């Protein structure tokens, strides 16, 4: 069922078994896991079915750290959430991501990849992806009749990314939710705070307001926050009647460790020494095994470990390069290129390939999302976000780009141009964040090092769960959607076991 909360009488109380706050990918995927059960599920959604700037502006806040995108720009506050503008790229975290890496402070998940992977498999069809296989790049390329890069696999490997159509959750799953007898979405409903018992150990209800409309209360046995990497901590911090510092924040970690991917686009451009190269496996989308895929370059665990790096990936694009004057043709003979394939000294298509990088950041407790003193339309304190990048991360980016430049030259493909190679002490101008807000309610084994436990339950609160990218302790180099939906399915299983 889908309900317009503007029609609710002010002061009304709704009862549910499970209250999921947020109807984005995570909220909808979780709710559908309960479809057809005997549990009454309420999904609280701030927006309607379309973008509305008044509602969207409730996301407004302040970047007080390194300049990045305005907070209201890179996520969407209406039914379907940020999947309404999601690009659709997918690749899972892997076993290495879950491990403790002694050279990366605060790394390591309390769960293993083995207990996580089954949920990745279950997520594939939800995101309209093909066969669950992300590592057989060589086999896929062979089947497609396309070459892969002749990489030195001690340094680089080709792997796969899967492309979702992309699935717009608000469109794709609207009908199923509408027809559900036990799952109800309440549109135009903004959670102001979660109310708890005196010891802040049990959430009793959510206070909800409609813009220019009624206020009402939703009581439930279990509560799940599924509002993204910034709103999840915001709601917890706003819920401060019983716990002055916010729910689940006895160790001051809610909002801490705020992180995002580090993108350099392009990281480097290759001026090709030959014109007979075929990069289509990497630059184009390919339909195979029931889905769409493309190749990317990443590094093997052994190199990451040996060089004590964070993880990173490279995408290849046929976009115009940064350099003004190509040099690739100078090296045709040096690179042993057949005369017919020697590159001219011009900047035409086929004489360059552009390489974009996404890099895993290092968890940092000094970066944060916290409440400011400014209020939004509903009288709620806005967020202020402090995103920072460190010298070590810059050195990591430099090394990653250096390795990539070396590899293209070693393959005899051309020479690399990258501003950071010339000036390793300076971030290149085309460096930005990935718009993947993460880490603010991180998962951990203990409340001293995290906000939620291995089951996504907030420490010290017996019926409050958080899911989405905010629970990631580390975020690898890869896009979050597949991973956060998989974690939400895992949470759904946990709650079903508890509730059914």
């Amino acid at each position: 069922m889908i309900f317009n909360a503007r029609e609710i009488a002010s002061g009304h109380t709704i009862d549910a078994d499970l209250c999921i706050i947020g109807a984005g990918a995570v909220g909808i995927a979780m709710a559908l896991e309960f479809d057809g059960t005997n549990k009454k599920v309420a999904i609280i959604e701030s927006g309607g079915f379309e973008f509305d700037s008044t509602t969207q502006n409730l996301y407004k806040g302040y970047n007080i750290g390194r300049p990045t995108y305005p907070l209201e720009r890179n996520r969407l506050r209406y039914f379907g959430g940020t999947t309404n503008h999601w690009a659709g790229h997918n690749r899972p975290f892997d076993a290495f991501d879950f491990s403790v890496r002694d050279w990366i402070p605060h790394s390591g998940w309390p769960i293993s990849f083995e207990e996580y992977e089954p949920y990745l498999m279950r997520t594939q069809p939800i995101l309209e992806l093909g066969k669950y296989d992300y590592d057989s790049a060589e086999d896929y390329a062979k089947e497609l009749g396309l070459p892969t890069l002749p990489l030195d696999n001690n340094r680089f490997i080709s792997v796969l990314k899967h492309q979702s159509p992309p699935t717009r959750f608000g469109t794709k799953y609207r009908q199923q939710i509408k027809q559900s007898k036990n799952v109800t979405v309440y549109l135009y409903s903004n959670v102001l705070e979660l109310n708890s018992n005196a010891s802040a150990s049990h959430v009793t209800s959510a206070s909800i307001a409609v813009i220019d409309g009624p206020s009402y209360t939703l009581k439930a046995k279990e509560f799940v926050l599924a509002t993204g990497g910034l709103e999840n901590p915001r709601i917890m911090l706003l819920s401060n009647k019983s716990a002055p510092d916010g729910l689940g924040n006895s160790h001051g970690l809610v909002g801490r460790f705020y992180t995002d991917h580090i993108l350099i686009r392009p990281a480097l451009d290759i001026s090709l020494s030959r014109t007979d190269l075929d990069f289509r496996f990497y630059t184009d989308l390919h339909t195979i095994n029931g889905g769409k895929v493309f190749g990317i370059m990443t590094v093997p665990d052994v190199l990451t470990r040996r060089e004590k790096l964070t993880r990173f990936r490279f995408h290849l694009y046929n976009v115009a390069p940064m350099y003004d004057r190509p040099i690739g043709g100078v090296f045709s003979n040096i690179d042993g290129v057949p005369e017919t394939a020697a590159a001219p000294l011009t900047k035409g298509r086929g004489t360059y390939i552009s390489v974009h990088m996404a890099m895993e950041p290092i968890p940092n407790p000094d970066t944060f999302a916290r409440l400011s003193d400014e209020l939004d339309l509903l009288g709620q304190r806005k967020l202020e976000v402090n995103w920072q990048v460190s010298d070590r991360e810059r050195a990591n980016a430099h090394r990653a780009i250096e390795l990539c430049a070396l590899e293209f030259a070693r393959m005899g493909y051309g020479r690399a141009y990258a501003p950071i190679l010339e000036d390793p002490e300076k971030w290149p101008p085309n460096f930005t964040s990935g718009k993947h807000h993460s880490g603010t309610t991180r998962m951990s084994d203990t409340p001293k090092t995290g906000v939620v436990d291995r089951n996504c339950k907030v420490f010290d609160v017996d019926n409050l769960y958080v899911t989405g990218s905010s629970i990631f302790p580390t975020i690898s180099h890869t896009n979050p959607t597949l991973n956060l939906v998989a974690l939400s399915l895992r949470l759904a299983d946990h709650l079903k076991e508890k509730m059914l």
Partner: protein
Amino acid sequence: MNFSSITCTRRDVLKLVATSTTVTLLSGVTSGCGLWKNDIEQAAQRMIELINYPDRAREMAAIHVARSPELQQLSYKQWTRKLLDVLEIDPENITKGTLNSLHSRLREQIKQDFVNENVVIVNKWMLSDTELKLFSLATSYTES
């Protein structure tokens, strides 16, 4: 491919060779474009042949050399010796076989530079140390 300035030099030499009565006397000693040249010059010429678009290569070398005053004074013979040294070739014992293998040895050495990270950054471009030496040789050879 473009060997403009290099092929011109070779053509001149070959023209001279074709009209010379000394050809028969020298033909058993060396081969290729450098019949009239000493071993170092022959090696230099042979190595420079590897470069396409030598003008652009010289530009890169000029930027590199400008940053290191000690390199600015090097003659083409010194650059050639440096390169031969990199290739572990004795400049006093250059044979026909050595000359014929120069291209493949340079190619392999340059590839190894990228494996061993023996590289130099010039104007945001990553180049191998050996190929920059080669470009520097091309620059100094033209000037000699």
